[in-house]
């Protein structure tokens, strides 16, 4: 390789490396702002600010959804399988909202550790399957004895 | 076939508007990109041809190279 070209190549590589380091450090410093939401472990560890609009995300805990029969109020727990946070929400939930599904809720954490949401978004995973397969999976999980999260829905969110 | 009828295919159980908007915009933009690129290519070919024919013809003193080029292009298409 021609020495001039070698020199140019070195400059180019340094340029990329420099920019990569700069961007890497910036995103590392801003990582809390880049995260779209706090997960339940962070909230219960007290990492999330109280009375500030934040987002909380995780899975809707199985059997935790309580709908108020007279209004649109819903209460459920959001979990990441190591901690969970109670969420209150008044409004229409997205179609994909269900127990065992991922959600991202926007709202404020009150003093009592409850999350008062004003918007709930459904977060789905990268798994796709036909309805029949999902049913069959759920059935076989049931047959194996109902241990824990043995539903058709995968345990990642 | 995942659908029972053509109407069901269009409706997509209520998701029709979303799905068809996406596919519509996709086809529109891809087709537009193809047509636009093709036309630009043809225009450029034509302009190159005009330049070289003008250069060739200048010795013989052809006064109007452009209309002549245009007719000749048409003939060449068969």
């Amino acid at each position, binding site marked *: 390789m021609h020495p001039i070209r070698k020199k140019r190549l070195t400059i180019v590589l340094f340029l990329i490396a420099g920019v990569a380091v700069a961007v890497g450090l910036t995103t590392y410093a801003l990582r809390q702002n880049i995260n779209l939401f706090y997960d339940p472990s962070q909230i219960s560890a007290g990492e999330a600010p109280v009375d500030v609009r934040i987002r909380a995300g995780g899975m809707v805990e199985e059997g935790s959804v309580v709908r108020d029969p007279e209004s649109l109020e819903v209460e459920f727990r959001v979990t990441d399988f190591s901690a969970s946070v109670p969420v209150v929400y008044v409004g229409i939930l997205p179609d*994909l909202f269900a127990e065992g599904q991922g959600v991202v809720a926007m709202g404020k954490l009150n003093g009592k550790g409850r999350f008062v949401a004003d918007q*709930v978004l*459904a977060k789905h995973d990268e798994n796709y399957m036909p309805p029949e397969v*999902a049913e069959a999976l759920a059935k076989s999980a049931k047959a194996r004895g109902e241990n824990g999260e043995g539903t058709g829905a995968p345990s990642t969110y | 076939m995942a659908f029972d009828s053509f109407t069901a295919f269009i409706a*997509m159980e209520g998701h029709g508007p979303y799905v068809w908007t996406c596919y519509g915009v996709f086809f529109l933009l891809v087709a537009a*990109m193809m047509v636009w690129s093709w036309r630009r290519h043809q225009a450029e070919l034509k302009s190159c041809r005009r330049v070289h024919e003008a250069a060739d013809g200048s010795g013989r003193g052809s006064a109007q190279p452009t209309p002549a080029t245009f007719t000749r292009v048409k003939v060449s298409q068969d």
Partner: protein
Amino acid sequence: MWQIFHKLGSPKWFFGIATRLMPWLLAGALALLAVGLVWGLAFAPKDYLQGNSYRIIFIHVPSAFLAQSVYIMMASAAVVTLVWRMKLADVFVKAVAPVGLVLTFLALFTGAVWGKPTWGTWWIWDARLTSMLILLFLYGGAIALDRAINDEKSAARAVAVLVLVGVVNIPIIKYSVEWWNTLHQPATFKLTEKPSMPAEMWVPLLLSVLGLYLMFGWLACLRMQTEILVREQRTRWVKEHVLARRAG
């Protein structure tokens, strides 16, 4: 080895190869896209959660995938422009930047329309969506910068530097869903694992991705040829080419 490399850079040589390749690229692209998209739209089973709205994946993923790989190709060409000063590399960058812009727009648009029924929102400033928007601006910036500078050589270098600096965004797009909490789901296709969907869903998706790849190939060849004609208009081989075409 370097000799072959330099021969590859000859616009005349490329022009001939492209002319021979293009019919195959176009035929392959149309066939694969037709099979993949009709399969995905009408024959693939619906998803157990999202129902039929997930069918948008068959255009969303190919567009997003291409948008990123076109950028990587542009960045590689930018290195060649800066180090070897090869004209063809610059021709490539200039010819495909608008295609990348359209593909990025398509990925964002189809994602927004898909997000409404599934997430409950058109747009959210999460890491994946935002980094994809930055990609759109990078494409736009490269096009604008090229137009803003009149001198061909300075334009080529300036655009190459911009494209190279922007390449840092590509790993951020790719890993955003793993590094940070995002609303966007992780990748369906991974190199190391089986795809997280059954074959009757991922086969049409793969066909669409390949189809759009070939479509990009065709567009790139055509647009590069156009750009070569603009730059080499007065050379003898272009003269022979255009005049031979008229006669034949």
